[in-house]
């Protein structure tokens, strides 16, 4: 089966700063692909590039973006607009970025259906209500008449998800959808996303910085660092045997109740993320890596072992050797 979304060698730059430095992604139907990394690693920019929503000043340089077999990298903006909100949809950390505070929930949701599906008013309202019910919003009829500011954070997030899914898209891009929410609400939203993915056969690209979320919801994980995917593997493999020193450092830096003894020092990654100019060579992690050698200043080839890809000079089994 061909993937719903396939990205090849995507590059984005802001002026002389290379924000995304050639990433590959492939997401199949019914798969949740998590793009994980720390702030500034280029994960959100990658998502926006896929949706062709890059801000002014950002320039996509190379790369193919194939959506359902069609290259959309050079699609005219009009056609792109027809695609967005219809067959590919995006949700954000802050629902108010996509909900308009001046319109009721109902008018925003029905507008989507009328624009993309040409539905009549009554049918659109009915569909919107059904969708709100599906995402677990109680009293959907009443919610349709309310304005976004009248809803709680969790409810707003559900409304945004419902709006994104109205046209039954094939691809859902979710950028930190639960970061602003309380932990108990987060679990509910993640469960909803997982259910919807399964029931609607969505391909989901989930951007997050939270490895806990990744572990519980992802099928496949790509770890980004300084604009590159440094490691890519099925979720179980990645957490059981991280092969890139950065991934390993990241996993060890999280306090896990019951795992790290209280009062014991947490592992840290020294230093800071480098600024990668266009034309940066070699491994971007080398300045912070305890295993770095002179070799790391040269371009690093990707290693592949089964479904596990990583971009490091170290072969698998290096941990035991070290």
């Amino acid at each position: 089966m061909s993937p719903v979304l396939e990205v090849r060698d995507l590059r984005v730059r802001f002026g002389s700063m290379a924000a995304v430095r050639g990433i590959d992604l492939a997401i199949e139907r019914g798969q949740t692909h998590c793009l994980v990394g720390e702030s500034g690693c280029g994960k959100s920019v990658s998502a926006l590039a896929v949706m062709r929503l890059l801000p002014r000043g950002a320039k996509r340089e190379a790369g193919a973006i194939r959506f359902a077999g069609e290259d959309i990298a050079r699609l005219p903006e009009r056609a792109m607009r027809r695609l967005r909100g219809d067959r590919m949809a995006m949700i954000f950390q802050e629902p108010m970025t996509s909900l308009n505070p001046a319109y009721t929930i109902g008018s925003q949701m029905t507008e989507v259906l009328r624009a993309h599906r040409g539905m009549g008013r009554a049918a659109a309202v009915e569909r919107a209500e059904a969708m709100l019910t599906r995402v677990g919003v109680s009293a959907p009829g009443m919610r349709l008449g309310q304005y976004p500011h009248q809803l709680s954070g969790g409810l707003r997030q559900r409304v945004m998800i419902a709006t994104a899914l109205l046209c039954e898209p094939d691809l859902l891009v979710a950028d930190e959808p639960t970061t602003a929410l309380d932990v108990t609400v987060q679990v509910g939203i993640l469960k909803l996303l997982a259910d919807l993915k399964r029931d609607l056969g969505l391909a989901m690209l989930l951007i997050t910085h939270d490895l806990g979320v990744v572990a519980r919801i992802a099928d496949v994980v790509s770890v980004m660092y300084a604009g590159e995917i440094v490691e890519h593997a099925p979720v179980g493999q990645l957490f059981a045997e991280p092969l890139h020193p950065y991934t390993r450092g990241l996993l060890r830096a999280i306090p896990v109740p019951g795992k790290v003894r209280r009062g014991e020092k947490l592992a840290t990654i020294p230093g800071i993320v480098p600024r990668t100019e266009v034309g940066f060579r070699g491994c971007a992690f080398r300045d912070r890596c305890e295993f770095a050698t002179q070799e790391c200043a040269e371009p690093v080839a990707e290693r592949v072992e089964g479904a596990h890809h990583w971009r490091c000079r170290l072969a698998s089994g290096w941990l035991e050797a070290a």
Partner: protein
Amino acid sequence: MSAAIEANGVSAVFNQRAGTFGVRRRVVAVDDVSLTVPEGMALGIVGESGCGKSTFARLLLGLLAPSGGDVRVGGQVLQAMDRQARARLIQPVFQDPASSLNPRRRVGEIVALPLRAAGVARSERRERALSMLSRVGLTPEMATRYPGQLSGGQRQRVAIARALVLEPRILICDEPTSALDVSVQAQILNLLAELRASFNLTLVMISHNLAVVEHVADEIAIMYLGRVVERGAAESVFAAPHHPYTKALLASVLTPEPGLGLPDLPLGEAVPDPANIPAGCRFHPRCPVAIPRCATEAPARGDVECHLVQSVPT
């Protein structure tokens, strides 16, 4: 061990008005909370947004006068002390270092500010500020930079240096790592642990992140809608939570363990609103095990405030 800081029946009530002609709302952010932190201990306060934990932090810092009860530091009522004396005893570290550092001042001036307020001479200020910067892992060159030129982790180090430059006894940390990346969070947590030991600090750590609190705190208080619903030694609360809310909160911690999937949280959808606190047990609309009594009768005061938990062995 004597109490470093204690809250005696502290409340914070606000009268909010939505717009000029809006309806008056009486918001009870903190409702009659009593807590004691012994000298040298670390208390973790955990709760979700709107539970009153940040208001409680402001009460402990004296930034807010309590509507009822009092906060005592070393036995003295905080509000009755003059601010210079308070500053020597208790200092804050806030969540977002981008907002807690004055963008128009250099790092050196920011760290030296408490000394300046205390009337320390210029040369001594400089010396102490620089030595504090090195204690938190920053180089002396950083002193001439502006906060905007630093990374998030470096800024939080600056905020910690400012808090410790007067060598206070108590540090109130309000979500000190929530705005930081994971790897930086670990650095800051390690730094806090190290400084706590060397300065013999009493720590109050407020967070929504249970894992962070678990790593740092000796004792834990769980807040819900303005009240502490469960408190106890960190180990026992994590190992054997009693209150249904604590259980739900613990269950919702997503540890990085694939294969566990997403936990089932049988919590109701009701949104906690401090302007409209439910009668009876304030948690009952969301509680999976509520009985009729919970809707009418507030549970007895204690370490665990729940009708279904009779007595907790301490």
